């Protein structure tokens, strides 16, 4: 029986493959990357690799398309995306595009979205 972290790792790898295939359709790729966040993972590496998949999906989106892609996400997905954005900023990686996304997402989903990230006990 593989450990929980191992299961997450396998799921994230599968997700990464899926995202890379879907990169031509940015919103589908992002939606795939945002599924099933590894809240229960014990190792920080697992969370980090999950975040990297989201960053890959984000970087596949052109700047003028960002607003359109965010509009297609559900409220739940927008909250998860915001969580990943903050997690990404923690790692000081691709901050330029993350900040751009953050600004547009805040405009679309409101500061309530940030509040939900701060208040949620399921951390990434």
């Amino acid at each position, binding site marked *: 029986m593989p450990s929980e972290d191992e299961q997450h790792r396998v799921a994230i790898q599968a997700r990464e493959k899926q995202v890379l295939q879907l990169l031509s359709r940015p919103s589908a790729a992002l939606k795939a990357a945002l599924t099933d966040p590894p809240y229960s993972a014990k190792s920080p590496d697992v969370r980090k690799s999950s975040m990297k998949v989201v960053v890959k999906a984000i970087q596949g989106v052109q700047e003028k398309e960002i607003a359109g892609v965010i509009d297609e996400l559900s409220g739940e997905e927008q909250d998860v995306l915001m969580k990943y954005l903050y997690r990404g900023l923690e790692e000081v990686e691709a901050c330029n595009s993350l900040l751009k996304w953050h600004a547009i997402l805040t405009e679309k*989903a409101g*500061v309530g979205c940030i509040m*939900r990230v701060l208040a949620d006990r399921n951390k990434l």
Partner: protein
Amino acid sequence: MAFQASRALFEQRKRPCALSCIAVSHDGRFFAYCPQTSKVLVSEYKDGEFRLVKELAQHDQLVTSIEFAPSSYNLLTCSQDRNAYVWDFGKDNEWNPTLVHLRIHRAATYCKWSWDGKKFAVCSGQKCISVCYYEEENNWWVSKLIEDFDSTVSCVCWHKSNTYLAAGSMDGAVRLFTAAVKGVDDKPTQLFGPDVSFKKIGQMICKIETNSWVHDICFSPTFDSIAFVTHDSSISFLPIQEGVIPQQEQLERIRCSGLPHLRMMFLSHNRVLAAGHDCNPTVYAKEGKGWKTKNVQSKISPVSPPSAMKKRNQLRNLLLQKSVEDSLHYKQIKAKVEESKVAEGFIEDAKFAVQDVDPEVCHFAMTTL
């Protein structure tokens, strides 16, 4: 000590200070509020204006909650000094305090009368609720404790039967309890199935996880749902069906775009008003099966004084610039309906009051909601 210091600070400040709580009597005649001090001020609404009639000074720390009794001018107040008082309104137009035996050694956070006015609940930082009732023999308000919490209890509301209560707490859960007191209540109805026992007060019927602080909780006027606002900028609705224990899966959660709401209330069975850190009271409406944000923020404008909204924003900017306020979250808006006519479930000509860092109370005409 800390309170003395903060009070000194308050008196030095040139700017007005936020109100910690407000209450409106059942007929809208009296209006009680606490300007972040240990005193409760009561105003009378007469000939279109508020006139200060009484200053109730009995507490010695910040008053956290005020409630008028459902059908009289009797007041209930609780404070961080771990006490609660029932103020009986006498024939001489005076309020006489009676101390309540709360049995707590932490601050009281919130209080609420039951619908028949025979009991009330006081929440506290001691992870419990005191359900208080009057004992004739001793001429004294006594209490029974409900202790099933992991953190400070922040809000409570009564079911119309007065034998159930719902409570929200800082451990991120909403709980439903039995609250019948022998000798005070008639035989309780088995609303949540025959398995619920009334032998002892405070039997937990269900626990709904919300994952963040619960600020306020309300039963709908038809008692077919419970609504509550949480610190994760959400408002949630839990349907209640007779004979069934509510389940976590039935929870309907609405994401708000602004900052979290602190207080909420039902305007009718399908309209909810919520207000808080966001500075904008928001109405949520039930359309068809689900609840939706009814964006009235731009539509509601205070009836009087007309410049209050603008003034509030100016004041907020001032706070930001000077950053003298302990934190911006200090400000609170609270809403309270002043129902003057309720006809066929439709509230006519009712008003609600909103207050903020500026203690001016804005009135909004209900018709615009």
